């Protein structure tokens, strides 16, 4: 009755910041051990030669993020700890390894997983329309388009350090396209990491997402 002509009366758009719960129900004060991370290797694909360790850089970035955004007790890394297997699918089966690592470090949870970092060269020739200033006719010409892409694929796993069982698994993937081939792998990888930052941290701590809704005016 009162707002019978609501549709005609108009709407107002509002922005909401919605609280999003963390994927893992933690108190925020647990002791976390980060690593080891496994770099995925595929038999049929040659790994790019990089001047840095993808897994160490991810571990360092994750430590920085958790230190900045959360209040967990981050335990120092132990020397010489290697993943129990080279097969990412076998990681969760190595419960003895994770339990033992938990005992050695005194952690409540272990954050580990596998990482795949790929450089995708998408350069190639592209057909482009071209109008000649001399005769005004339209021609087609081949133009070399240089593009480099970086794909970062993580399977982040959180293990219960008491039992060695996996309590949470989160696949995260990002692709960053760079217009020039001169962009180095290190910058490319960090572009991927910054893009995934929000999703990574949301596993451990609550976040907010911005979204829009419409209110109806009387």
């Amino acid at each position, binding site marked *: *009755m*009162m*707002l019978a002509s*609501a*549709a005609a009366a108009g*709407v*107002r758009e*509002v922005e*909401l910041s*919605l*609280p*999003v*719960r*963390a*994927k*893992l*129900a*933690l*108190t925020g004060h*647990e002791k976390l051990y980060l690593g080891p991370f496994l770099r995925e290797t595929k038999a049929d694909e040659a790994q790019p030669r990089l001047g840095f360790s993808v897994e160490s850089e991810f571990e360092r970035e994750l430590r920085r993020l958790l230190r900045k955004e959360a209040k967990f007790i981050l335990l120092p890394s132990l020397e010489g700890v290697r993943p129990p297997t080279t097969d990412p699918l076998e990681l969760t089966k190595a419960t003895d390894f994770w339990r033992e690592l938990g005992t050695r470090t005194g952690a*409540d949870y272990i954050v580990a997983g596998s990482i795949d970092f790929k450089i995708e060269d998408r350069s190639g020739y592209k057909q482009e329309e071209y109008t000649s200033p001399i005769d005004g006719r339209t021609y087609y010409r081949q133009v070399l388009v240089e593009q480099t892409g970086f794909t970062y694929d993580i399977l982040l796993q*959180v293990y*219960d350090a008491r*039992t060695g*069982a*996996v*309590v*949470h698994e989160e696949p995260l993937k990002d692709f960053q396209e760079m217009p020039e081939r001169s962009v180095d792998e290190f910058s490319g990888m960090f572009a991927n990491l910054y893009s995934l930052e929000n999703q990574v941290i949301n596993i451990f701590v609550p976040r907010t*997402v911005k*979204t*829009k*809704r*419409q*209110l*109806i*005016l*009387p």
Partner: protein
Amino acid sequence: MRLTRALATVGAVLALACASGGSASRNAHVDVKEGVRVAQLGYWQEALFRFSRAHETVPDDEATLNNLAVAQEALGRYDDALATYKLALKKAPKNAVIRKNYARFAEFFTSYARGAKPKGDDGATR
């Protein structure tokens, strides 16, 4: 004579009732308008109060229901928002604004709001 008096009394009572109904409706109108204004400023608690009060007066009004659902959502009362959106859609299934808001809410509600608990645990945190 008596009949005339009785009829006059009934008429007066009816007129009063209509007047108070109109006044309540006007108040609800003001509440919704003010609720929208404060919501745009980010004062969601007040907006929720305004929309709730308007909803008590005009419970079937689809626009009030839509605004109430948005306010509930803004304050993290997702279960209430879900129920209110559903009620709004029941009243006005073809309202494009409500449908759009509800679609966005449903997407958010299913993919983000339900945080996972550690598997293989009793769910209690240590």
